């Protein structure tokens, strides 16, 4: 992965994000977003975040595997249910995975 490609991609993300944010304040002051795009943009994060959770938990290269990460994410899920703050959820997930690896279970 070259540094240049990463910087280019970050610029695309930054400029694109800014343009999306600016539509309301700069162009559409006082107007409402039609129902369909409003609903679609509201639901997109749920689909994408869930896909990220799934692939980063059970995918290794291009195959599905169950390893120490699954234990960590399961523990993180418990933390989420208990309404732990974000940083705690992350620490629980990483810590559990590290522990399972250290013990040599997975």
């Amino acid at each position, binding site marked *: 992965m070259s540094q240049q490609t990463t910087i280019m991609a970050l610029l695309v993300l930054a400029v694109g994000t800014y343009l999306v944010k600016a539509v309301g304040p700069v162009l559409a002051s006082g107007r409402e977003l039609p129902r369909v795009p409003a609903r679609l943009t509201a*639901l997109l994060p749920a689909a994408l975040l869930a896909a990220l959770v799934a692939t*980063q938990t059970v995918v290794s290269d291009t195959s599905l595997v169950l390893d*120490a990460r699954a234990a960590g994410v399961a523990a993180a899920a418990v*933390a989420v249910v208990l309404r732990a703050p974000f940083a705690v*959820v992350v620490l629980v997930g*990483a810590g559990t995975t590290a522990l399972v690896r250290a013990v040599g279970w997975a």
Partner: protein
Amino acid sequence: MNRTTTSHLVLRRALPVGLAVAAYGLSYGVLAVAAGLSPALATASSVIVLAGGSQFAFVGVLAAGGSPMTGAVAGLLLNLRYLAFGVAIAPHLPGGSLGRRALDSYLIVDESVALALGDGRDDVARRFRVVGWTVVIGWIGATAIGAYGGQLLADPEVLGLDAAFPAGFLALLAPWLRTRSGRVAAATGVLLALALTPVAPAGVPIIAAGLGAVVAMRFRDHEPSTPVQRPAALTGGADRR
């Protein structure tokens, strides 16, 4: 309702948000460096993007071996919701110059819009700006600390940092799982992503999973839902009142 003083607003509303965002930014800084970004680039990314979930998605795709451009597209799809956020907050921001509106646009994040609109009708613009700048400071500052400190960490896998990504995404996802349409979007997204994983390059299954949102649009929720009332994806429920 009386106009609250700015110091009161900062202490009662902005500071807790700032702390939650800082904790989140710290994890982002550490993980961005673990995914291969230099500390300077990680910090710069927080300045120019200022949208935590998408930045996490970007470095998450990199860490999984995907191409940077794939990560950028996944991040952009996550950020499309700011279109609705911007349209929702715009009527509350008094006219002003183009420069002012351009600067206000930068401040549109989950926390600033949710707290500005969710806390009554008075003072919306001021709440939006105070919370927005608090997020800017907390997010960028904490990213820098996490990124430069994260360099010192040992092997990411030994520390379980690869599991920190999905754990973080799960925390961000939680608010959506409380609605039916959110659950359908999530479940469909998971199925699409896992089905495509063996055949598509890393990151592409994530983008395709966005179709889950299209499927979920057919499902109604009992409570009226607007994107803005949907809880802050940035803090992942940490600041739910």
